[in-house]
């Protein structure tokens, strides 16, 4: 018996405009509404709408035997509300079938767990509420941004009441073990850890249309066989991938939709096989062993670690400066400011600053709205500086009302001294390169 667990990740960031140093202090309109709207509409057309329609069809056709799980970031949901409400409607239709489970994640698709656990908790609760409001579900299973995971995370998430958590079935943590079983995270005995079968997942998500691949073309029969081969050798096949695989990463003309349409039938040909949601998987199967994962891992790039977002000093200093001011931003009590700051925590902004593969120009470049990672950094830092100016303005206002402003907090952030000057001189943060241990 082999259970197939499909999990799809849906996410779109709020991308930044071309925000230059001359905009700092002059305008706080950071996000490129035009572009974000255009992208949402485009991906909705190529992917979200047709694939949701297909899944709905398959769920009805297979009368309760076919099910899937989703995690949709809060920032994506917000953008659907704003720019493509029909997408939201189609996800709601899926929710109503009762065969679709929604997971929990950070609202802003952020790496906040690495920097500020309180912020992390708040973002998770925000997201939980959103899922309840939109889909009338209370998520019981958690996945962190980009499947960033370690023991500590599992422990923390267990403390928040979740039953199961997802992670990448990376070779370096599995060794000889198989991702096709459930494990118990060390330090979190009550949690079930579901690991992505990266080979079978990436066969669909990445290799599907690659004519140079020796298994191309991937037919349902072949893939069905690979899945069923695991009978007796594993419990669970976790197929975790970006939802944009369907229609956007793999274009329609690759035959990806036809493939998906025929797949459930093919899998169900074997009476021993079935489909499960993440919760069903966690309930059905026992854990076979404990897994001790101390260092953070992820599902990104070859390294499967944090280097896609925090590998170089640009990314590190930007992230540190961002999270440093979290508390002060919240103290101002200004919801618009807080919302803007939170949108900056989205991991994509740091992804764009990755220099790793820059010279080779590959997958990072494709999704990058900037010409170079340097421009990504500059734009981000300029925006951050404007946020700081807004914080200062609000603090000044409060100061005249409330004498108890703690300057201690402001000095932490290496503000320049020119708080009172006639001609507004440039007061950019000059982040020091202090690589703290992010493990």
């Amino acid at each position, binding site marked *: 018996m082999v259970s197939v667990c499909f999990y799809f990740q849906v996410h779109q960031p709020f991308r930044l405009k071309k925000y230059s*140093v*001359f905009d700092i202090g002059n305008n706080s309109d950071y996000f490129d509404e035009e572009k974000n709207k255009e992208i949402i509409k485009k991906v909705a057309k190529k992917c979200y709408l047709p694939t949701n329609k297909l899944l709905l069809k398959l769920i009805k056709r297979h009368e309760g035997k076919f099910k899937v799980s989703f995690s949709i970031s809060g920032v994506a949901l917000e953008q659907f509300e704003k720019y493509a409400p029909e997408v939201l409607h189609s996800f709601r239709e899926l929710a109503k079938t009762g065969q679709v489970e929604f997971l929990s994640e950070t609202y802003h698709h952020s790496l906040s767990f690495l920097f500020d656990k309180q912020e992390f908790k708040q973002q998770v609760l925000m997201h939980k509420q959103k899922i309840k409001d939109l889909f009338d579900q209370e998520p019981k299973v958690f996945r962190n941004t980009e499947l960033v995971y370690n023991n500590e995370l599992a422990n923390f998430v267990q403390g928040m009441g979740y039953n199961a958590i997802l992670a990448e079935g990376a070779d370096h943590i599995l060794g000889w073990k198989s991702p096709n079983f459930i494990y118990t995270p060390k330090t979190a005995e009550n949690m079930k850890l579901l690991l992505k079968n990266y080979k079978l997942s990436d066969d669909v998500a990445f290799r599907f249309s690659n004519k140079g691949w020796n298994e191309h073309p991937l037919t349902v029969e072949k893939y069905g066989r690979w899945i069923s081969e695991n009978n007796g050798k594993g419990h669970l096949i976790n197929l975790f991938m970006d939802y944009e695989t369907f229609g956007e990463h793999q274009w329609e003309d690759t035959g990806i939709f036809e493939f998906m349409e025929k797949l459930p039938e093919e899998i169900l040909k074997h009476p021993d096989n079935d489909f499960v949601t993440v919760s069903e998987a966690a309930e059905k199967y026992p854990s076979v062993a404990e897994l001790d994962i101390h260092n953070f891992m992820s599902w990104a790039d070859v390294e499967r670690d944090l280097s896609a977002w925090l590998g170089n000093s640009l990314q590190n200093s930007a992230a540190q400066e961002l999270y440093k001011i979290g508390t002060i931003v919240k103290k101002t009590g200004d919801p618009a400011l807080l919302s803007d700051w939170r949108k900056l925590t989205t991991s994509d902004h740091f992804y764009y600053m990755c220099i790793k593969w820059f*010279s080779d120009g590959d997958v990072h470049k494709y999704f990058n709205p900037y010409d*170079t990672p*340097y421009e990504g*950094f*500059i734009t981000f830092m300029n925006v951050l500086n404007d946020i700081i100016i807004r914080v200062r303005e609000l603090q000044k206002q409060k100061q005249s009302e409330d004498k108890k402003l703690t300057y201690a907090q402001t000095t932490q952030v290496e503000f320049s001294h020119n708080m009172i000057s006639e001609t507004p001189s440039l007061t950019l943060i000059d982040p020091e390169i202090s690589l703290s241990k992010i493990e």
Partner: protein
Amino acid sequence: MLGWELPPFFAGGVGMVCYHLTKALCDHGVDVTYVMPFGPRMICSGYMKIMVADHLFPKLRFKLKEVETLIGAYTTPESYGEDYQKYLASLSSKDRSKSLYGPNVFQEAQLFARKVRLIAFNEDFDVIHAHDHWTFPAAIAAKKASGKPLIVHVHITEFDKTGGTGVNQRVYDMEREGMHAADLVIVVSNFVKQRLMNNYGVPEEKIRVVHNAAEMMDETADHDASKIKETDKIVLFIGRITLQKGPDYFVEAARKVLEKDQNVKFIMAGTGDMLPRMIERVAEIGIANKFIFPGFVSRDEVAKLNKIADVFVMPSVSEPFGLVPLEAMWQETPAIISRQSGVSEVLNHVLKVDFWDVNDIAAKTLALLHYRSLHQQIKQHGALEVRNMTWEGPAQKCMDIYKELAGNR
């Protein structure tokens, strides 16, 4: 190879490219007979001539043939007129009728061609490789004399020099004739390729792009700039102060930078027809005390300036390649370069701007001056990038082209 003045005679970008390319070719086993224009313009002694031949290139591979001429790599019809007058003035009155050189540049080019033709008759070679552009008539003559295939190597065109207006028709004709007579045309960038296709009617199949590489320089000793750098950052411009190089955009961007940050000094090194205007302009807008105009600078001084600079800016309006930012990057100075340049096609670790976008130039300058980790990262990656741009690449491409034309040898 029909090239230009080799070191220690400094002929600017073209001369440097000729030198580096020739050296790399020799290192790869190509025998080069180098025809070098040589005239009273060049201060020299017999010793220097020998030095060129013996010390710069492997003896067995390199043969130098000097040809007396008054033309130089950057000669214009007007400048030739001046040089010619100077030459005449240097002759004693009775020699004046026996001038060695033609009275105008086009006739001199023909005289030069005749001399080169003789060399072509007597030398044994497989291909002719001629660099811009006064060598073209000579190159055509050599081709006719020897029957060997001709490659013409275009570094810059009359169009780029004049910005499209005031193109000298006869120069244009000569360039065009050379390109059409050639069996293949090498250009230093896609930028130039487009120019040839659009303005010179050269068919695409005939053009090969061989990007220039970076000069491998020695490590410069740390120049003591502590005095000036105590208070100010330095933003550097090196190049001819002329329309093509966009010096006016540099000045306007400087003004914007100073609006936000007073602690910056701008150095504009070089000479040119726009220099007086630039000096006037900075005074006009009240930033003269932030500007330094060193005038013409030697290679050593260029290296030192690059080393102490915090940011290098190349706002060229139309730059067929652009070697200057490579030198800055070598010295670990981040560069902001115009997209309207050939070099922007090959560099990754730079910030690119459109030359007219003064706000963008200023914004990127400020970002580099103020975000330390950005400055650190980009200068390190940039330095590495140029160290990997050796002349191996272009030399190999030229060799492939030679083989294509002359069959395998």
